């Protein structure tokens, strides 16, 4: 994937999120979400919220919902391992939640440290009752984003848009 490709899909994804009313973009920096967060910084109504740990983002999204606002949590897949206990807030409280997970350790990964958590992403999502919407090809992005937005903000579910390394491209070491 080239930088131009990344700019293009990030812009399409950002547009869909803004269109759906998302305003807070809680994130831990990752190469995969970098462009998306730059777009949020540049947008008049969007607000990026830099986190120290991904779990904070789950609670921030719930807090936004209590006052009728919509937030999204953007993270690398390794960060999902920091979230399960806080995800009980989502399942138990019936809070909407949209995660955007940029994968490591699933396809073409060269760093052995990334595999254990990368391979645990789907089991953890399932265990905590968060639906998974996986993007492997460019043409998957728009419908998967629509489906995840519908699940979260129409149906009040926890939903994760999982951007695979097949889609993102694997980092060279």
């Amino acid at each position, binding site marked *: 994937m080239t930088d131009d490709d990344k700019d293009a899909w990030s812009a399409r994804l950002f547009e869909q999120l803004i269109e759906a009313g998302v305003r807070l973009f809680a994130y831990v920096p990752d190469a995969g979400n970098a462009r998306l967060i730059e777009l949020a910084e540049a947008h008049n109504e969007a607000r990026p919220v830099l986190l*120290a740990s991904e*779990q904070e983002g789950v609670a921030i999204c719930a807090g936004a919902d209590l*006052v009728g606002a919509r937030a999204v949590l953007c993270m690398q897949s390794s960060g999902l391992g920091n979230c399960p206990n806080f995800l009980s807030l989502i399942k138990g409280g019936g809070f909407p939640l949209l995660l955007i997970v940029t994968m490591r350790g699933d396809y073409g990964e060269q760093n052995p440290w990334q595999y254990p958590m990368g391979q645990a992403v789907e089991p953890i999502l399932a265990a905590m009752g968060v639906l998974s919407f996986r993007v492997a090809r460019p043409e998957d992005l728009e419908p998967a984003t629509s489906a995840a937005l519908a699940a979260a903000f129409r149906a009040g579910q926890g939903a994760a848009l999982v951007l695979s390394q097949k889609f993102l491209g694997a980092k060279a070491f």
Partner: protein
Amino acid sequence: MTDAEIDRRELLPALFPAPGDILMVSGLAGASRDAAALTGDGDTLFTMAGTMGAAVPLGLGMALSAPASQVAVITGDGELLMDLGALATVATQAPENFSIICIDNGRHGETGGQLGHTSHRTDLARIAEGAGLASVLAISRPGEIAAAAKFLAEATAPRFLLVRVKAGPPAAYQRDLDPAACRLRFRNAYLGAG
């Protein structure tokens, strides 16, 4: 901790004479009991009974999304220590409508009163200062509570108030523990039913 003379059950009523005007979040265990007793488990209080560490970031999400309202988080030393990074997140966002009140009894009250780090060498007020909160105040005596109430009303936000309290039970209040019911109750109160 030996100089702490405040009975926690007398703290929140003195700090918040009009709690219904504030959106509140309270962390699990004693903090939520005290906050529920203060408000009668009020509609604009969201109490927690799990997800240790979530109170500060949940309040932050609320404060950033409701800038016209004042938001206060009531937490304890154990809960705050579970997610110290959130203090840095609050400092960077610097919401002008946000206060954190940490009731520091130096122990894990809900699990039997086992001593925590603040009974040893850890000072949460200095951690909050180091994280970059705009205003930080620590008190330990009943005579300082009035100044703390003024601090919450007037100091530059985000504010961090550390209250060192003596060992002893929180308010004996039975609140609603159903998070889904509490979510709907809060949203209906804030957003208007229907």
